């Protein structure tokens, strides 16, 4: 997980073909805020509608159940798993997008809007730059990380990591 954490933080690797160019938004003041690239989805998996369509899958089944495919994600799923499952965030009718509780569609690159529905305090702090991480210029253009750059949306709690080595004790140093 240490590796995964570092990987997701280091700019999230290659950009998937579905990812629109980074958005530049201006909020608060005259600073340019650049969105970090969302981490890539599993290779070859997007668009989801390749498989999730009636021709391949038959009739839409929205019942909560053990999955045959995506069982890897289901097994690591640890995000209020008692009460929630795939279709609470992924849109049943159009699997290429997510949806808010209102039903409004949200693209994968704007998933923070979805996160913000439940984690309103974090969302508010994140917009202020208090939660999360920004890199670049304190006085100018900066890149801000999205929720999913640091947190695995299916298992958002940070996993423990190996610390770098402790300092040398004075007694261990050469005189």
């Amino acid at each position, binding site marked *: 997980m240490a590796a995964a*954490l*570092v990987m997701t*933080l280091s700019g999230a690797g290659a950009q998937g073909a579905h990812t629109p160019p980074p958005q530049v938004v201006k909020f*608060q*003041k005259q600073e340019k805020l650049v969105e970090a690239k969302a981490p890539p989805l599993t290779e070859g998996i997007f668009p989801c509608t390749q498989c999730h369509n009636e021709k391949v899958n038959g009739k839409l089944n929205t019942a909560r159940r053990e999955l045959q495919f995506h069982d890897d994600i289901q097994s690591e799923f640890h995000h209020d798993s008692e009460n929630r499952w795939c279709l609470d965030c992924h849109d049943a009718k159009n699997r290429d997008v997510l949806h808010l509780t209102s039903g409004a569609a949200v693209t994968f690159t704007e998933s923070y809007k979805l996160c913000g529905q439940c984690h309103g305090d974090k969302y508010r*702090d994140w917009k*202020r*730059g*208090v*939660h*999360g*991480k*920004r*890199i*670049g*210029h*304190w*006085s*100018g253009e*900066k890149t801000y*990380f999205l929720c999913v750059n*640091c947190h695995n949306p299916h298992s958002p709690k*940070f996993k*423990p*990591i*190996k*610390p*770098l*080595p*402790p*300092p*040398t*004790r004075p007694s261990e*140093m*050469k005189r």
Partner: protein
Amino acid sequence: MNPMNSSNNSGGCGSEAVDPGRRDVLKFLAVGAAMASGAACDLEGFFRKSFRELSPADVRRMVTGWERKYSRKYGKTVTVSETGPMAGVKFGYGLDLSRCVGCRRCVYACVEENNQSRKEPQIQWIRVLEMDKVHGIDLNHSDIYYDAAEVPRPGKFYMPIQCQQCDDPPCVKTCPVGATWKEKDGIVVIDYDWCIGCRCCMSACPYGARHFNWAEPSLPAEEMNPKTHVLGNRPRPKGVVEKCTFCIQRTREGMYPACVEICPVGARKFGNLLDPESEIRQAMDTKRVFVLKEELATHPSFFYFYAT
């Protein structure tokens, strides 16, 4: 007169008080030694005025000399910037104790960025303290040598400490030769050519933030960061004190410090305290904030906070 007291008035921002005694005494005592040790190339540095008495042209000339010297020594193009403070900027730093996991990524990012001696002596400007949750912040029972397969460890929390860039810095007050002072943007800097290595500042600093080059610093050429600042991460000689400068070579160019950028949990915040929209001000205005050892009235520019 006690030199510790005689320079008490040099604490203010941009104060010009520079003790002239250093040159008279040391010139006399050490010229022979400097010559005998073959340090001929450093003689100009040795006889120059204190940094704050130099004209911009003098500084540029000096800096160009260093660029040439360092480039030769490390086999790459080394730049030495002398960028001054920006108008309307007072730097502040925030550290979210509810986030830090004690991974020490910041420690090593700092060592690499700021050309600290790697070993013998090993110098690290950031110390991460491990403490017990049940005891709260208790410096006497903290551990900087913790090692573990994984952090955070159960029942523990972590508190990184580095120079707090105090507004009333005891280190500056105590320096008998005026080799360290506070700049207008709040950064406390050291003139490595003026420091006599007496280490008064180290004993005066309540945060253990200052470190001494007991031997010639070890800095492998391939690891040397060639983007340097004259009052920051340029290579240090043996026998001088050094400390965190908020990455002066980066932050005076508008960039975040290296520790802010490396932290995997986003615990570190940096910005202009005079800008109410800055991240540091947003944290201070909306979270529970404290400074370390407030009772000593050092007035740090470094703020610890709890975001949750």
